[in-house]
């Protein structure tokens, strides 16, 4: 019985840990995910699109991948690992065992997944998407530059608060490279610094003062939604003249908005968002949030399948020089949110509640 208890305990701790730490894409909220498969024809090459978690962000990418399959005559399998690195590894190995003709993957921990990426590249065509692993033998990377996207987010902050003021940044976790780059890009743009992807302001060093703007702090929540809201409320309590709050992961801005609403400071504290959570888009429509910097997950999926299908047929000309296909981010404000949301609904064929 003792052994059984120990086993059950260890299993639960592992599952709980993974559930907490690797549950969602850093730039997205959860969605109706889990992955899927489409078969175009028996002769078409079978390619796979592997995400780094289950999230609404990835649902959009899945739609792009499936549309890509129809357009470029490929059978597509989409895999969404729910439990982090181990799950992703298992899924990839199972795909290789099926004789898959190519994998587009968003590596969860590229620095420590070298073995897995080597294993994939030694068996089939490997490309990375959303998050790069430049040290691997991937054939190309499809995605945006997180530092540039961060700078775009910083531009929104400056537009929302042109006269200057104080800014606090809320983010799920800073251990991930894309989160670090996003945050640094945002800070550098707000403070009017030159572009330098190697610069890193340690969040433990306290306030960063510029001429017009001050970055007060960066608070993380480890993907705990309750704690994210607590962090937002504590910041409102601590900084009476707080000018702007930036949420760098998709779930952060809606929770910031909750805190700002409850404090009765909508409009007084500006909110700038990242990604296309429906509640953020709705708040931008209503003028409660200033704007959001969005990625283009549909094209991550679509372009990945296009490249993999061509590679499976032996066409290597689709790989660009430098090995990077940039899918740029966009800034969405009140003036273009309707157009963006309509387009998003068309791509995902999903009704957006509250949208006019």
């Amino acid at each position, binding site marked *: 019985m003792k052994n059984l208890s120990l086993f059950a305990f260890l299993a639960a701790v592992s599952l709980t840990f993974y*559930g907490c730490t690797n549950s969602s894409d850093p730039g997205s909220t959860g969605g*109706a995910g889990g992955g899927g498969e489409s078969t175009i024809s028996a002769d078409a090459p079978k390619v796979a699109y592997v995400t780094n978690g289950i999230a609404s962000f990835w649902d959009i990418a899945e739609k792009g991948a499936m549309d890509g399959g129809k357009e470029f005559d490929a059978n597509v399998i989409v895999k969404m690992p*729910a439990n982090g690195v181990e799950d992703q590894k298992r899924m990839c190995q199972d795909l290789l065992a099926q004789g898959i003709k190519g994998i587009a993957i968003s590596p969860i921990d590229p620095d420590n997944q070298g073995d897995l990426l080597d294993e994939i590249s030694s068996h089939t065509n490997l490309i990375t998407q959303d998050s790069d692993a430049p040290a691997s033998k991937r054939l190309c990377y499809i995605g945006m530059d997180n530092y540039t996207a961060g700078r775009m987010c910083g531009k929104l902050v400056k537009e929302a608060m042109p006269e200057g003021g104080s800014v606090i940044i809320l983010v799920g976790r800073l251990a991930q490279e894309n989160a670090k780059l996003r945050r640094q890009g945002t800070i550098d743009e707000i403070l009017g610094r030159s572009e330098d992807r190697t610069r890193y302001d340690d969040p433990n060093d306290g306030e960063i003062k510029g001429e017009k703007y001050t970055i007060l702090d960066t608070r993380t929540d480890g993907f705990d939604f*309750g704690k994210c809201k607590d*962090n937002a409320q504590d910041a409102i309590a601590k900084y009476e003249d707080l000018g702007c709050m930036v949420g760098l992961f998709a779930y952060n801005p*809606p929770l910031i908005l909750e805190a700002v609403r409850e404090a009765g400071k909508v409009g007084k504290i500006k909110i700038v968002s990242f990604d296309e959570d429906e509640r953020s888009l709705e708040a931008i429509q209503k003028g409660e949030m200033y704007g959001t910097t969005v990625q283009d997950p549909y094209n991550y999926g679509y372009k990945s399948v296009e490249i993999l299908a061509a590679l499976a047929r032996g066409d290597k000309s689709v790989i660009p020089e430098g090995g990077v296909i940039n899918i740029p981010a966009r800034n969405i404000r009140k003036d273009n949110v309707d157009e963006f949301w309509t387009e998003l609904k068309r791509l995902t064929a999903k009704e957006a509640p509250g949208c006019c």
Partner: protein
Amino acid sequence: MKKNLGILGLFLVVFIATAFANPDFVNAYNLENLIRRASLYGIIGIGVSLVIITSGIDLSIGSMIGLVGTMLPYLLIEHGASLFTGLLAVVALSASIGLIHGLLITRLKLQPFVVTLCGLLIYRGCARWMTGDSVQGFKGNYDSLRYLAIGKIPLGTLPGIGEFNLPVPFLLMTGLAIVAAIFLNKTIYGRYLLALGRNEQAARYSGINTDRMVVLAYVLCSLVAGFGGILFALDSNSIQPDNFGSFYELYAIAAAVLGGCSLRGGQGSIFGVVIGAAILPLLRNSINLLGMPTTLEFAIIGVVILAGVIVDEVVKRMAAKRRAALAAKQASGS
């Protein structure tokens, strides 16, 4: 009350130190937030203390909160269920889960640790499967229901604090604490729970139906956890099935143990649990307001609680020694 002096002292030290270090800590807005968070944790702490008193444990509370918190908006928003149906469904589910736990523990003689650990996995899985892992929320509806979690009652201007509003969850927690304290200390069933926690065999031989009391404790614990789940969901309004409520069982158990409940059973005070539950949100709030790095958060919480418990234990031992010495003196004098 005397037994809770240690934890109360820890609470006051952290509270006063933070208030001195940052005067914003005692502004009305921050105190309201702190009281609301402490009340929500207090509610689930009270629930689990009823089980701990019987020398049991419930590790499924976090997943229960996740399941109930996910299910309520899922039924109301995704399926258009009426408020009555939605609430009835989650309350019935909570009670049923407690009943199953209790029956498995008393009839099949399974260990509470294993039963509720499996519950932790099962309920999390159910929440994720039911919703397809999609984020749930009330989407701007049910504001009157959300009042239970985010509502505030104006109390006017308080000296040194400003315009103060009492969070509604504090009233709910206080009501629950009073009922739980009366149940535990003034009713025969409460005394049965304490008795069976201290020595189940002796309680059974003295005519108490211990199995029935254990089942009752688990049902009450799950019901309260379900109630907590509803409130946490109404407060957050953004519920991710794969992690909503994760680790809350540990926070609840920590609150109960810090508040004086013995994991061996037979001992516990509701007042202590309420204070114990307030320690965690207080420390988190202090860390934020004092601008300490979030990366150090767990370490600071661990060190402060450990230091508090050590001081409490040392003080208790010194008091016991003094009492023993006094008793020996009196015995030799008589």
